[in-house]
């Protein structure tokens, strides 16, 4: 049982603000993801949860209890580090049983838990090998198994699969999700890969410079980003963000090449269009904004097209392998309901009758 929460936690290292007034609650048994660019405070938050650091301001709570002064060992949280930290002089089996031996768990139980974890992670056949003899993927799974056998209140994982091959990453993240479900424990996960975060998280928090910008399910954040920063972070290719100005009943962007019916909002400074929301058709002089195709990237399942409209570059993502050539003249259209509008400081503008984010 572990509900983990922060109440207005701030942490400084010298003059650098690592965590800026962070507040959140991770529910019991939730797969929660912290996502953000490097140096945005993700690893610091993990260290605060684990107890390796103390907050300068605010409280860290586990199951409703303030644990600021409690030692890491007493908090009963298992962590998988980014560099795995496997003991090179022990076999995989030795590594995995180490935390249990340390805690004086009876031998029979150790064997049972180890066998169970090894089976879940498909590493039973390599338990006798040393870390130096294992591949990157195998080492990763041994590190995860070591955390798994501890049966802690919660798991923390700091970017555990970024060192793996792309293909292996895709497979391992599904495995991790399955394991978390089966283990029934809270898992707090840090990553800078947006596809990974959206795939595994029940809920996620987006970080910028140590501050939490938005918390929600991946779908909520993707469909309703709180700021332009958040909107740009999720989705590949990135959302196209263009400066926009209101002119009477329409909104104009990309040097007047894009015209949209003005929504019921004030203070529009820019608008955002997701590449997959853009429709491209041959230019016939009718509806749509005129654009020229600059580049075509055929990726098999979909095609990314870079376009230029009114001097601005945009990217559109089209399904399959449409027949589009470079320098073709095309018409750009977009469903008005899928356009995001942002204000001066990048915050998303919403009609007054709708609620805020999350």
């Amino acid at each position, binding site marked *: 049982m572990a509900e983990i929460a922060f109440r207005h936690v701030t942490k400084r290292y010298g003059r650098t603000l690592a965590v800026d007034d962070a507040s959140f609650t991770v529910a019991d048994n939730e797969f929660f993801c912290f996502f953000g660019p490097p140096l945005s405070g993700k690893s610091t938050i993990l260290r605060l949860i684990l107890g390796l650091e103390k907050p300068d301001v605010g409280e860290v709570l586990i199951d409703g209890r303030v644990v600021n002064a409690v030692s890491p060992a007493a908090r009963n949280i298992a962590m998988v580090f980014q560099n795995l930290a496997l003991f090179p002089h022990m076999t995989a089996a030795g590594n995995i049983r180490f935390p249990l031996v340390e805690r004086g768990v009876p031998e029979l139980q150790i064997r049972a838990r180890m066998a169970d974890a090894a089976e879940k992670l498909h590493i039973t056949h390599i338990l006798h090998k040393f870390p130096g003899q294992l591949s*990157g993927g195998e080492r990763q799974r041994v590190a995860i198994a070591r955390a798994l056998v501890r049966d802690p209140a919660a798991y923390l994982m700091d970017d555990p699969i*970024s060192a793996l091959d792309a*293909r292996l990453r895709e497979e391992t993240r599904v495995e991790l999700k399955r394991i978390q479900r089966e283990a029934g424990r809270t898992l707090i996960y840090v990553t800078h890969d947006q*596809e990974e975060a959206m795939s595994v998280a029940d809920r996620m928090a987006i970080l910028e410079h140590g501050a939490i910008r938005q918390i929600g399910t991946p779908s909520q954040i993707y469909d309703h980003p709180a700021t332009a920063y958040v909107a740009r972070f999720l989705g*590949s*290719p990135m959302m196209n963000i263009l400066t926009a100005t209101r002119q009477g009943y329409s909104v104009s962007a990309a040097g007047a090449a894009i015209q949209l019916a003005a929504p019921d909002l004030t203070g529009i400074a820019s608008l955002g269009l997701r590449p997959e929301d853009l429709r491209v058709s041959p230019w016939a002089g009718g509806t749509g904004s005129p654009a020229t195709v600059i580049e075509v990237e055929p*990726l098999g*399942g979909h095609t990314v097209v870079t376009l230029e409209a009114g001097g601005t570059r945009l990217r559109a993502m089209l399904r399959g392998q449409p027949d589009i050539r470079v320098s073709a003249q095309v018409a750009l259209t977009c469903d008005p309901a899928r356009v995001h509008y942002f204000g001066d400081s990048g915050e998303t503008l919403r009609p007054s009758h709708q609620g805020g984010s999350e």
Partner: protein
Amino acid sequence: MSAIRLENLVKRFGAFTALKTMDLAVDDGEFMALLGPSGCGKSTTMNMIAGMERPSEGRILFGDRDMAGVAMGQRGVGFVFQNYAIFTHMSVRQNLSYGLRMGGRPKAEVAQRTGAIADLLQLGDLLDRPAAGLSVNILQRVAIGRSAVMEPAIFLLDEPLSNVDAAFRAVMRTELKQLQRQFRQTMVYVTHDQLEAMTMADRIAVMDHGVLQQVGRPLEIYNDPANLFVARFIGSPGMNLLAGLPLETAAGPVVDLGAIGHSPVLAPAQAAAARRARGAVVYGFRPEQVATVPPGHGMAMPVSFVERIGARTILHLGHGAQGAKAVFENDVGLSPGSMAHLAPIPAAIRLFDAETGVALRGT
């Protein structure tokens, strides 16, 4: 002049054969990606092209010139290491001008060429900064500029984006591609990320365990993989591969997929391929190339997991060897536990010989 040809290339390290008989031709000015999982021999191949390793057998030719015996420093190739190998005890300017200075070029020429490269790569403001401590994005450009200033005919890049955070990778892919367009040099690029290869390369050479699997344009490899390995490796997710037996039914030729049932009737091209099978086949279709159909038609598979990733939703269907994935836009309305009824686009089906793994073609 700067075309590369690898003939019968073999590389052994003691008892271990890292590369088995590789034949490859890279055209002048082409961007060729060497793609494959860790340990497939792609880095070994590139090291041999650069001259850092000597082939155990076979030869490497630049244009018509056999490179046997030509030392590493004499080959005129540019090389970008995975960790960039920037001279961190020197300034950016000293890094960029290193090759020219060691080659004894006159001071005026060194200054002019260094300045030109710096402008091209937008490093002009950073020239006199120490190279240590700069961001990865800048280091990549310094690494490229350091080689590019020598105006090599051939550029080799060894997984240069693998140390870069996922968030920046897309940005840097675009930069690299633009640079290649500008310099128009022959580029050989090693990677394990199929998305990188598909985005950037003119042609891709797919490798596995020291053997070249297939060479072709990105879409060729995607649409017509030569074997099971390529089918699985290219595409995100990879191609669905289900074991089955060709069967003639009253409705037409199908593939019997065991517990899943019969596949939809095969189109003529696929039927011709099925007829060439000598036994069991593998029925392949891409996750992006399926459509939902009413119950009773197509294949029925239970949904085990739903992955929603931004613009797409990946349905995980079935389990283990009978498993498959399907990719949809987000309005699919299926949840774990329910039954999905799917039919792949007939023209997109690919059949493979179950024993050899080689693709079956009608003609």
